[in-house]
Each structure stands twice: as structure tokens, then as C-alpha cells.
């Protein structure tokens, strides 16, 4: 896996990451479409994810929880806006039970296959700076502890490799 481009658009509050995998698009799609594979990468190592519902159809829902080392469960959900296997997936993403008071973000995934490789573009759009702060653990609430755990784990991974 190689990250080939990152765009942090602070005016539009969006993050775009383009990465390339040495696998056909059908194979890369499976990491999203197969709940058992999704569980292996969605949560950070110290918060492994367990997918409960996984309905990757237009209007469908994915629900999951992540379990911390102390047994604490953090719930999250996706609401599928559009899906076109193995090319694109768009969903709204939130933490806790679906709730208008908690921040939700928009995620868009696009896969493009070139010979023996697949380029995956992920665009995440945030509604507000306040939402981003809450999701990254600078506010209060369930998502907070989750995000702090994720960031800690990723810093550990990045510095270890």
C-alpha cells in the first residue's frame, strides 16, 4: 500500500487520501464488503471492531462496536447513501446510536483499477470544526474516548514502522 496524495482542504473541511494497492479492484472492494475483513482494519489495534449489521445497499446500515482493553464498548454506524461494487461507496458515518446531536461525517470511497493495481480515493467531509474537535477527542462524549484511542494507536503504529 502506498499513499500517493493527500489534500487537506481547510476551507471545505474535507480530507482526501489517495492510495494504491497491489490488488484488483474486486479484491480491494472485499475489505469494505466483507464484514469479517472490515473488522480487521476499521478499528485501531487497541479498539478492535466487531461488525453487527452489514447491509451494503442503498439506504442500508452498517453498525459496529469497538471494544477497548478494559472491555468498554464504543458503538458506531454508517448509513449507506450509494453503493456501486466494486467502484464506489458513499456513506454517512457517526458514533453512538444514530442521533442528531452527535456529529456525523460524510465518506466517499472510489476504486479505479489499473493493470494489477487499484487506486482507492477516500474523501471525508466534516460539517463543522466543532464536529472535528469532538471526533478527535477535544470535546466530551463517547466518540471522544474512541478517537483518542484511535489516534494513540496510530501514532504507535507509525512510530514503530
Amino acid at each position, binding site marked *: *500500500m502506498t*499513499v500517493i496524495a*493527500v489534500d*487537506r*482542504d*481547510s*476551507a*471545505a*473541511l474535507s*480530507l482526501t*487520501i489517495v*492510495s494504491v*494497492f*497491489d*490488488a484488483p479492484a474486486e*479484491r*480491494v472492494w*472485499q*475489505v469494505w464488503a*466483507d464484514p*469479517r*475483513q472490515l*473488522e*480487521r*482494519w*476499521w478499528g*485501531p489495534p487497541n479498539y478492535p471492531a466487531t461488525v453487527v449489521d452489514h447491509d451494503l445497499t442503498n439506504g442500508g446500515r452498517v453498525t459496529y462496536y469497538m471494544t477497548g482493553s478494559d472491555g468498554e464498548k464504543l458503538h458506531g454506524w454508517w448509513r449507506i447513501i450509494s453503493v456501486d461494487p466494486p467502484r464506489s461507496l458513499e456513506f454517512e458515518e457517526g458514533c453512538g446510536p444514530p442521533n442528531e*446531536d452527535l456529529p456525523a461525517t460524510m465518506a466517499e470511497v472510489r476504486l479505479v483499477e489499473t493493470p494489477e493495481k487499484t487506486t*482507492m480515493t*477516500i474523501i*471525508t467531509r*466534516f*460539517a*463543522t*470544526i*466543532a*464536529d*472535528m*474537535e469532538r*471526533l*478527535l477527542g477535544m470535546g466530551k462524549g463517547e466518540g471522544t474516548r474512541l*478517537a483518542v484511542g*484511535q*489516534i494513540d*494507536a*496510530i*501514532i504507535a*503504529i*507509525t512510530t514503530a*514502522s
Partner: protein
Amino acid sequence: MVVGRTGLLEGHANRVFRALADPTRRDVLRRAMQGTLSVSGLARLYPMSTTAVQKHVAILEDAGLVHLTRHGREQLVKTDIDTIAKAQSLLAGFELLWRGRLDLIGDVLASPSGGDRS
């Protein structure tokens, strides 16, 4: 009461979101980084009336994304770098999160038992 405080915060957040939802306003933010352009100077850059540009600037000012300062007869528009910098550092945090996930996807794709839990 927590709800009241959150309500205030969300009110401001909604103004920021509304301000950023328009491509012209996002372009104004990029152009006004130096703070050397006036409202009328900005208006010359867009195929719209000065009044229309004034309205866009007023929405950005209301959201705290730009500040207006009087300079002689002109109003200079300056992007609030602190707000933008804050957004940048938050986006960097999410970039880190996604880089970690992408590394793990690479591991899943590389493992022979792709469909099994490790």
C-alpha cells in the same frame, strides 16, 4: 445546563458550515489570506455585483472566518488564519487515522487467508 451551552456552540458551528458551503465564499477565504483585498477589489474578481460579494463577505464575517478592517475609504477583508490553522491541524489528525487504517488494509490484502480474522 449542558444543552444550552451546546446549543450556542452548535449555533456558531452552523454559521461556519453555512459560510463554507458556497464555492465563492471558499474562494474568498483563499484570496483574502493576505488581507490586502478590499470588498470592492474582491468584487472585481467575480462575475457578480459588489452587493452580492458584500453579502458573501458578511456571511463569512458572521461565521468568524474573516475580519474586516477599515483602511481609508475601503474595507479590507482578512481571513482568520487561526480558524483555518485549527481546521488544518484537525484534518492532519484525521489523515493520521486514515493512514493507520490504510496500513491495516494493506495487511489484510497481503495475508493469504484474506477473509479470515487474524
